[in-house]
C-alpha cells in the first residue's frame, strides 16, 4: 500500500466537516452582510439618536436641529483653515460678518429669500462713501459694536483683519486683484477706515468680496490673546475656537464628527437672531437625512440628493426650495495642457457629446437649469442671448472629432470625487451617451482629497465637479477660474490665443467705471462668447439648492456659497 492509500485512515481522525463548514460559511456570509450594513448604519444610528432628542428641541421655536453630512474641520474656513467645503462656508456665513452684505429679497419658493447680487447694504459698517474717482471706499463702523466675547470693534480691527488674511499662507489673495491688502487700508479714526483701489471698475467685485467669505472682520483683541511667536495671528487656535467673529452665532459646544451647537450672538450687528440655538447633527447618509426631515425628527437637512428631493417634493411635511438663478453648477472641465483636450475641436466635440438634457432630467430630476456661460444671467445689462450654445448632438461631435484628426474616436479619463454622488451618476451618463459620439471614457473615482489635488495641479484629462462663483459679479466669475500662467485656480489650464482675447476683453470691461453699465455688459458678453467657443469648461447645468426643510420653517436663505444663514430662519409662528 502506497502512502497515498493511507489517506482514509488519516482522514478518519479529522472531524466530519460538512455541516459545521456550511454553518461556518453562512456565518461568514452573514458577518459580511452585517459588516456591509454596519458601514451604512453609522448614519442611521446617529439619526435615531437625533430623532429621539430632536423631537423636543425641534418643537421649540427658539431651537432648531439640522441634519448635516459633516461638520466643518475648521471654524476659520477659507482664511486660516484653507477649507473650501460647504461645511466651512456655513461656519463662515454664521460665525463671521463683513462690512457689507447683499440684501435679501423674496425668492421663488414661498417663504424663502435670495441674495440680490447687484446691491449691497451695511452690515458691520453703518455706512460707506465712495470717492468721486471710484478708487477710495470709506467705511464708517457701527459705534460701540462688540464681538461675540464683548470686545469693542474698531477700525484697527478692520485693518488687522486684512493683515491676518494677507499673512495666512492658505488665503487666496489673488481674488482682490485691484486691492493691495492691509497696505491699502488707512485707519482714519476708531470708527472709520478707508480702502484704496487701483481700478474703479473693480469696485463692485470689491464690495462682493467684502460681503463674502474672503472679507470678514475679526476681533483682533481676542485673537492676539491667543497668538504665539510661531503663530502671531492665532491661525491654529481659531480653527477650533469661536468668539472672534462678528456673525450671528458662536459655537457653544462641539463633538467632532457628531454634533455642533451654535448659540445666538447677543452682540450681533443686526440685533438678536430669531432662532437662539442651532444644533447641527451629523447624519452620514443622504437618504437618512431626507427621511429625518420627512418624519419631523429634524427641522432642516443639507446635502440631499436630487432624487430624494424629487420624492420629497410631494411630501406634505417638507419644503424643497427652488430659485430662479441657481449659482452652483455641474462643471465638466477639460484640461487643456495635454491631449486630447489641447485641441479646441476635440473640446467642442465633447461639448456636443455631453447629454445636458438627460443629466438635468435623469440625475437632477429637472432640479437644474441649462447654463450658458458662467456669468449670473440676472446681472444688470448682461444677456446670454446670442452666446454660443451646445446641445447633445453625437453626429456633430463625430464630425468635429474627424476634423480634429480623430476619425476613430478619442479615449480619456474623467475624474470625479467620491464625495459627490450626483456627479458620479452624471459621469456615468456622460460616459454612456458620449460613447455614441466617439468618446471612450474611463471614470476615475477619487477621494475628495485626491480629487482636490487632481484639480489644483491639473493632472487629469477631464474632471467633473460642483463649482460656484462665491462673488456673483462678472469680474469674479470670469477672472477667478481662467487665470493664465499655470495658475492653480484655473483647473483647465486654458492658455492660448483665445485666452489672450478673453483676458483683453475682460480688461476692457473692467476699464469701465461701472462694471454693470451697458458698455461693460457688451464686453462681458464678448468675453463669454470667446470662452464658450474655446470650451475649456463645459457648463452643464446650474443646480438647485441641496437643502430641504420642514413646512413650518421660514426664512430659508439662498446664498452664493450655498450655505444657510441661520439668523434668518424661524420655526413655527
Amino acid at each position, binding site marked *: 500500500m502506497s502512502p497515498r492509500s493511507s489517506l482514509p485512515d488519516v*482522514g478518519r481522525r479529522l472531524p466530519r466537516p460538512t455541516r459545521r*463548514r456550511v454553518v461556518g460559511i453562512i456565518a461568514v456570509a452573514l458577518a*459580511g452582510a452585517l*459588516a456591509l450594513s454596519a*458601514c451604512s448604519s453609522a448614519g442611521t444610528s446617529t439619526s435615531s439618536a437625533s430623532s429621539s432628542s430632536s423631537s423636543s428641541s425641534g418643537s421649540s421655536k427658539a431651537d432648531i436641529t439640522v441634519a448635516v453630512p459633516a461638520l466643518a474641520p475648521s471654524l476659520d474656513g477659507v482664511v486660516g483653515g484653507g477649507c473650501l467645503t460647504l461645511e466651512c462656508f456655513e461656519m463662515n456665513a454664521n460665525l463671521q460678518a463683513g462690512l457689507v452684505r447683499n440684501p435679501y429679497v423674496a425668492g421663488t419658493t414661498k417663504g424663502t429669500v435670495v441674495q440680490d447680487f447687484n446691491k449691497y447694504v451695511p452690515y458691520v459698517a453703518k455706512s460707506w462713501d465712495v470717492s468721486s474717482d471710484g478708487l477710495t471706499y470709506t467705511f464708517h463702523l457701527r459705534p460701540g459694536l462688540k464681538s461675540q466675547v464683548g470686545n469693542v470693534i474698531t477700525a484697527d480691527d478692520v485693518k488687522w483683519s486684512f493683515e491676518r488674511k494677507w499673512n495666512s499662507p492658505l488665503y487666496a489673495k489673488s481674488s482682490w486683484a485691484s486691492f493691495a491688502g492691509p497696505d491699502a487700508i488707512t485707519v482714519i479714526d476708531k470708527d472709520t477706515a478707508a480702502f484704496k483701489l487701483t481700478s474703479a471698475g473693480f469696485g463692485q467685485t470689491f464690495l462682493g468680496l467684502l460681503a463674502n467669505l474672503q472679507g470678514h472682520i475679526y476681533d483682533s483683541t481676542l485673537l492676539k490673546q491667543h497668538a504665539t511667536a510661531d503663530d502671531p495671528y492665532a491661525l491654529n487656535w481659531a480653527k477650533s475656537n469661536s468668539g472672534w467673529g462678528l456673525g450671528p452665532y458662536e459655537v457653544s459646544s462641539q463633538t467632532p464628527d457628531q454634533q455642533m451647537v451654535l448659540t445666538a450672538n447677543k452682540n450681533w450687528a443686526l440685533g438678536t437672531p430669531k432662532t437662539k440655538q442651532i444644533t447641527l447633527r451629523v447624519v452620514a447618509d443622504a*437618504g437618512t437625512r431626507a427621511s429625518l426631515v420627512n418624519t419631523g425628527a429634524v427641522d432642516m437637512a443639507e446635502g440631499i440628493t436630487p*432624487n430624494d428631493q424629487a420624492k420629497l417634493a410631494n411630501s406634505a411635511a417638507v419644503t424643497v426650495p427652488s430659485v430662479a438663478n441657481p449659482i452652483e453648477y455641474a462643471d465638466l472641465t477639460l484640461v487643456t495642457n495635454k491631449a486630447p483636450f489641447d485641441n479646441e475641436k476635440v473640446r467642442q466635440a465633447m461639448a456636443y457629446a455631453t447629454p445636458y438634457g438627460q443629466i438635468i432630467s*435623469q440625475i437632477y430630476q429637472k432640479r437644474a437649469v441649462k447654463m450658458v456661460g458662467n456669468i449670473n444671467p440676472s446681472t444688470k445689462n448682461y444677456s446670454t442671448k446670442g452666446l454660443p450654445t451646445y446641445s447633445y448632438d453625437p453626429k456633430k461631435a463625430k464630425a468635429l472629432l474627424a476634423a480634429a484628426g480623430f476619425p476613430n474616436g478619442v479615449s480619456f479619463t474623467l475624474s470625479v470625487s467620491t464625495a459627490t454622488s450626483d456627479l458620479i451618476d452624471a459621469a456615468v451618463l456622460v*460616459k454612456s451617451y458620449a460613447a455614441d459620439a466617439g468618446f471612450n471614457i474611463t471614470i476615475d473615482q477619487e477621494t475628495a482629497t485626491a480629487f482636490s489635488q487632481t484639480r489644483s495641479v491639473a493632472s487629469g484629462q477631464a474632471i467633473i465637479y460642483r463649482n460656484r462663483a462665491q462673488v456673483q459679479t462678472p469680474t469674479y466669475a470670469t477672472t477667478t477660474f481662467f487665470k493664465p500662467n499655470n495658475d492653480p485656480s484655473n483647473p483647465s489650464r486654458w492658455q492660448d490665443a483665445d485666452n489672450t482675447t478673453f483676458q483683453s476683453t475682460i480688461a476692457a470691461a473692467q476699464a469701465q467705471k461701472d462694471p454693470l453699465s451697458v458698455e461693460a455688459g457688451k464686453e462681458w458678453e464678448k468675453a463669454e462668447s470667446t470662452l464658450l467657443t474655446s470650451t475649456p469648461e463645459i457648463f452643464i447645468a446650474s443646480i438647485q439648492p441641496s437643502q430641504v426643510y420642514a413646512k413650518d420653517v421660514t426664512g430659508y436663505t439662498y446664498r452664493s456659497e450655498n450655505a444657510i444663514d441661520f439668523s434668518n430662519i424661524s420655526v413655527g409662528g
Partner: protein
Amino acid sequence: MKKTIYAAAIPFAVLLLIAIFAPLIEPYNPEKVVGLSTQAPSAAHLFGTDSTGMDVFSRVVAGFRIDLVMGLIVTLLSTVIGLVIGLIIGMGESSPSVAGAAGRGANRLIDLADAIPPLIVGIVVVGLFGANIVSLSIALAFILTPTQVRLTRAEVLRVRSDAYLEAARMAGLRPWQITLRHVLPNACRPAIENSSLVFGVSVVVAAALGFLGVGLVPPTPEWGAMISKGVSDAMLGTWWTALFPAVALCVAVACASGVSGVLTRVTRGHSLA
C-alpha cells in the same frame, strides 16, 4: 448519499452557468443608460432601473460574472500560494539550519499578516495599484492566503512524522521528492476543503470594498457598489436598487458552501461517503 453530496454543488454550477452566459441573459447592456432613472420593477425592467437609468437586472446578472470570476481567481491564488508556503514552512521550521529559522520567521510573519484588517489591506492595495479585477484579486488573495498557509502547515507537521515518510527516506528519496510525492498529497486536504470558504469570504470582502467606494470603477456592475448606492435610495422607498444585488451576493455565498461537501468528498476518497 453520494448523489446528495454532489447535488449540493448544483446551485453553484448554475451560478457558474449564469456567469458564463451572462451576455446572453442580460436584456440590456449593463453599463449603458437604457431608461428613465429609479423606475420600479416592471415587465420592461424586471428589477427596475437605478439612479442613472441603467437596468438593475442586467447589472445583477453581469455582477455574477465579475464577482464569481474574482472569487475563483482569489481562491485559486490563495490556495496554491498557501499550499506552497505551508509546505515550505511545515517541512523546514523544526530544522536547526538557516532554512529552519527562515521558516519559523515566515510563520510569525503569517501570524502578523493575519492581524491586519482585511479591508485596510484591500484599500491600500487598490490605492496603490488601481481599482481593477487583477489588483483586487491580488489584494484579496493576500488577505486570504494566511489561513491556507496555517491549515497546510498544521497538516504538514502532522503528516511528516508518519512512518511512510521514514520509509521513503530510507528508500533514498530526496527531501523535495518526499515533499512533493508524499507530503503534499496528504497535507493538501484541509486547504482544498477550506477553499469554498475562501471563495465566499472573497466575494463578501470584494463587495465590502465596492460598498466603501474603493472597488471597481463605475459603472462596472459590481454588487457591493450597487448595494452602496442603493442603500441611500432605499430610505425614501427606492428599495429595488439595493435589494437585488444584496440577494445575489447572499445566494452566491450560500451556493459556494454547497461545494464544500463535494470538495471533502473528492479529497477524502469514496470510502467516506
